[in-house]
């Protein structure tokens, strides 16, 4: 005599509906490739602190971001430009990719998936490192160069950031000149300033410090020094602020580099 040890499946409309299964990731691209059609992207228009953006994406991740203002808000002009840049036709999506709107709200672009397939390994390294810069803070080009192990490639870092296909989300606006000035931006310095302001960066203060030749700020209570926009530097009380023109000067005065903003490489600090 057989004995039922497992559960007998429930046969109901709801149980059958639960057998509805999404097509595997990349299914549409496989079909299009099979037909010899340009793989398609989807796009959405979303709000950002620097005005509306067109964001293009596929199953592989987000692959392009453009300010809508560049096309006078016309999706057809965006689609034409996207085709020209990538060879992919973008069609309007009914909803944005998961997490996009919250990433724009919080400035945490690292939580999204990107498709950076067309970039060189160096460009990818620059953009991946840039994703680590927290919202509300900035780092010099030299910092990115040093942190990816290419300390002398500052100019190359600048041009890699200039070719960032997903600006705003990968925050190339948080990379500034080594003297502390805001510097250039693919869509013009005003948009860079707007984005930084929206994240709570006191751009004017950073520029005043740059005018005074100040590159680093320390606390004489903790003996720690930071880049001026570091979230910890902002907590230093007025009377306890020490200003330095170089990392060498800070180290010479007995300060140690902040572990959050890494004003010098770990090797130089020891």
């Amino acid at each position, binding site marked *: *005599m*057989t004995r*039922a*040890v*497992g*559960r*007998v*499946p*429930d*046969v109901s*409309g709801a*149980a*059958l*509906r*639960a*057998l*509805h*299964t*999404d*097509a*595997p*990731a990349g*299914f*549409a691209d*496989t*079909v*299009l490739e*099979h*037909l010899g*059609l*340009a*793989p*398609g*992207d*989807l796009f959405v228009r979303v709000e950002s602190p620097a005005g509306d953006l067109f964001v293009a994406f596929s199953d592989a991740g987000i692959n392009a971001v453009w300010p809508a203002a560049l096309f006078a808000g016309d999706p057809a002009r965006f689609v034409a430009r996207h085709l020209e840049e990538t060879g992919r*036709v973008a*069609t*309007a999506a009914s909803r944005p990719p998961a997490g996009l709107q919250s990433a724009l709200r919080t400035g945490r672009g690292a939580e999204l998936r990107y498709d950076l397939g067309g970039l060189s390994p160096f460009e990818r390294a620059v953009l991946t490192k840039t994703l680590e810069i927290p919202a509300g803070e900035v780092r010099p080009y030299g910092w990115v160069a040093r942190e990816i192990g290419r300390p002398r490639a500052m100019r190359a870092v600048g041009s890699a950031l200039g070719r960032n296909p997903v600006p705003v989300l990968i925050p190339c606006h948080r990379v500034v000149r080594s003297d502390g000035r805001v510097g250039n931006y693919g869509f013009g310095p005003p948009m860079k300033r707007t984005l930084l302001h929206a994240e709570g960066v006191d751009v004017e203060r950073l520029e005043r410090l740059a005018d005074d030749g100040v590159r680093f700020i320390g606390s004489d209570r903790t003996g720690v020094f930071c880049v001026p926009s570091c979230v910890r530097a902002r907590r230093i009380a007025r009377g306890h602020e020490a200003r330095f023109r170089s990392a060498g000067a800070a180290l010479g005065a007995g300060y140690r580099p902040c572990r959050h903003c890494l004003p010098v490489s770990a090797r130089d600090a020891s």
Partner: protein
Amino acid sequence: MAADLDGGFGAFVRTHADAVYSAALRLSASRADADDLAQETFVRAYRSLRRFDAARVRALEPRAWLLTITVNLWRNGLRDAARRPPRAGGTPAQAVADAAPGPEEAAESSEQARALAALLGELPVHLRGPVVLRHVVGLSYAETAAVLRCPEGTAKANVARGLARLRQMAAAETPAPRAGSARAAARRGVKPRARKESR
């Protein structure tokens, strides 16, 4: 899409991929066959759309039309398979039921769903189509009938028969994994000796 087939086809595929894939998976009861069946559906659809004029494209009911292609491809595949010698190894139904769940199989993560999917794969073909279209894909009876090219009353009756058969199979199902088909399990359940013992 009527104006620009090549530009719009990607969005068309993405819009309907899940419905077509679900139908393909539950009709064929095999992940490998489902991939082929769903892809082939869109390839055939693209070739047809190339030939259709704009008015005909606009008049299409895309989901039902795509599923008609899927069902026809599936039936043709079964007919061809019947003419070939049987494959070695387990039935396709078992392939789906026994496959270790991967990241994409979250939908089938529950024991219940796996068991039901396996039963569905053993349902006779003329009942499986109506049940899959009506209950897994969620078509109306009218759409189900149109896809299967049968009167609506026939579609309704076959959906009801399919559900009744599934319940019968589920009740007779014993969970021994190598027990063979549900029908075999049903036969075991009514063996005279078993009856005698239970008296």
